[in-house]
C-alpha cells in the first residue's frame, strides 16, 4: 500500500468518525448554567478535529505523487480471516461453553494455524491451561467464565 492510498483511507475514516461523533452528540443534554461546557463539548471538539484531519489527509493524498513502493511483506489474508473468526468464536462461546472448553478449542486451532506440531500443541495447551488455572483461578481468585453447561 502506498502513501497516497493510506492518506486517503485515513482521511475518509477520520471524516466518518467526525460525522458520527458529531451526530451522536446532538441529543446530549447541554449543561444548565451558561458558560459551563456540557457533556457534548469535548466530543464535538474532537469531531471538528477529525474533520480538519480528514481535510488535511485527503488533500495531501491528492498532492502526493503516486509512488509505487515495493511491497516488502506478503500478507496471508486467509490466515487473517481465520484468525478473526477464531477470535469471534472465543468471545461468543466463552460464556456458553465456559473457559476450559472454549480455550482448548481456541488454542488447538490457533496452533494448527501457525503450524505447531499436533503432539506439541496438545502438550502446550495442557500446560497453558494449567498455568492459567493455577495463577488466575487459584492464586488470584479470578473466577474464570464457567459457561451455562459446565
Amino acid at each position, binding site marked *: 500500500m502506498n502513501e497516497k492510498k493510506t492518506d486517503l483511507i485515513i482521511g475518509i475514516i477520520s471524516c466518518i468518525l467526525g460525522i458520527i461523533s458529531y451526530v451522536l452528540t446532538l441529543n446530549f*443534554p447541554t449543561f*444548565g448554567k451558561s458558560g459551563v461546557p456540557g457533556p457534548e463539548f469535548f466530543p464535538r471538539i474532537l469531531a471538528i478535529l477529525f474533520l480538519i484531519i480528514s481535510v488535511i489527509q485527503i488533500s495531501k493524498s491528492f498532492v502526493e505523487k503516486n509512488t509505487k513502493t515495493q511491497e516488502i511483506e506478503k500478507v496471508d489474508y486467509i490466515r487473517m480471516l481465520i484468525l478473526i473468526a477464531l477470535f469471534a468464536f472465543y468471545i461468543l462461546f466463552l460464556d456458553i461453553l465456559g473457559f476450559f*472448553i472454549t480455550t*482448548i478449542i481456541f488454542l488447538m486451532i490457533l496452533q494448527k494455524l501457525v503450524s505447531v506440531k*499436533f503432539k506439541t500443541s*496438545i502438550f502446550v495447551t495442557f500446560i497453558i491451561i494449567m498455568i492459567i488455572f493455577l495463577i488466575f483461578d487459584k492464586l488470584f*481468585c*479470578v*473466577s474464570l467464565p464457567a459457561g*451455562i*453447561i*459446565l
Partner: protein
Amino acid sequence: MKKLLLLLTVLFVSSFFAFAQGETEAEDFPTKPIQVICPWSAGGGTDRTARFVADELSKILGQPVNVVNKTGGNGSVGHQAGADAKPDGYTITNVTFDICALKHLGYSDLTPAEYIPLLQFNEDAASVTVSADSKYNTLSELFDDIKSKPASSFTFSGSAIGSAWDLSRLALFDAAGVDPAKVLYVPSKGAAPAITELLGDHVDVITCSYPEVAPQVEGGSLKTLAVLSDERNPQFDNIPTAKESGIDCSYGTWRGFAVPLETPDYVVEILTDALEQVINSQTFIDFMNANGFGIKIRVGQEYGDFMISQYEGLGPMIEKAGYNN
C-alpha cells in the same frame, strides 16, 4: 490423532455428567465454590467488607467463597451481572445503596425488585464536614449563612453526580428547605478526592461518611459539623446529629447481599442462615468497628421493603435535581 480427539471428547462428556449429577442432588448446597459479585473496585470499603464476609462465609459453608469485582458505570455493571446470574445461589451480589438510584439516573433498568434480598449488614450515615478553620461550628450556622448569602457562595463536594454523598446533600437541603441549586456542586470520583479538595481549601463543605474523614478530623485539620442520622453514633458520640441543629434529615449508604430472582427457597434459607451467623459473630463486629463501618441489620423481606421504599423515594429527588437521563 483421531483417537486422541475421541479420548478428549469422552473425557469432556463424562465431566459434564459429573457436574450435572452434582447439581441434581437437591437440598445439598453448596457443593461447589460460591462467588460474591462486588460492583466496586478491589481495595475499597465495599470490597474489603465483601472479602471479610466471604472468608467467614466459606468457613461456615465449607466451600470456597470468592469475591469477584465487576466494576464500572456507578455500580451498574456489577449489579447487572449479579441480577443476570444463574439463580442457583452460587452467585451472590454485594448490593449497595446505588442499586436504588441506577434506574432513575438512566444507567440501567435495574431496580431492587430484581433480586431476592438476603440481608443488609451495614449502614453509614453521611456527615457534613468543613475545614477546621472554618467559622461554622454547627450545621444551623452553616445553613443560616447559605440562606442569607447570594447563590453560588458555597461549593460542596463529596462524590460523583447521583452517588450516595451527592444524594445525601440533596436530602439535607430538602430537609433544610433550601434549594440545592443555591450552592455549587463539585463532582468528584469519591470521598478521598473530595477530602483532598477540602484540605486544600478548594471547596467549602463536603458530605461523606464520618469514618472517611475521621483521620483528618482527629488530626485537627477538618471539622465535622453533623452526622445525618437519627441518633448519635456510639462510636463517635461527640458528633451531633443534624436533628440537633433543627434539620430533620437522616441519610446515608448501606451494603447488603442478594441473589437473583428464582433462586430456590432452600438455597436462600441456607445462605441467609450462614450470613446471619457471620454478621452476629464477634469477629465481624470487631472488623466493622476497626474500620469504622456502621452495623445495621435488616433480614429478608424487611430488607427488600426498605430497598423498594428507598428506590421509590429517590425518584422525585433525582428528578428535582435534574439528574434523570
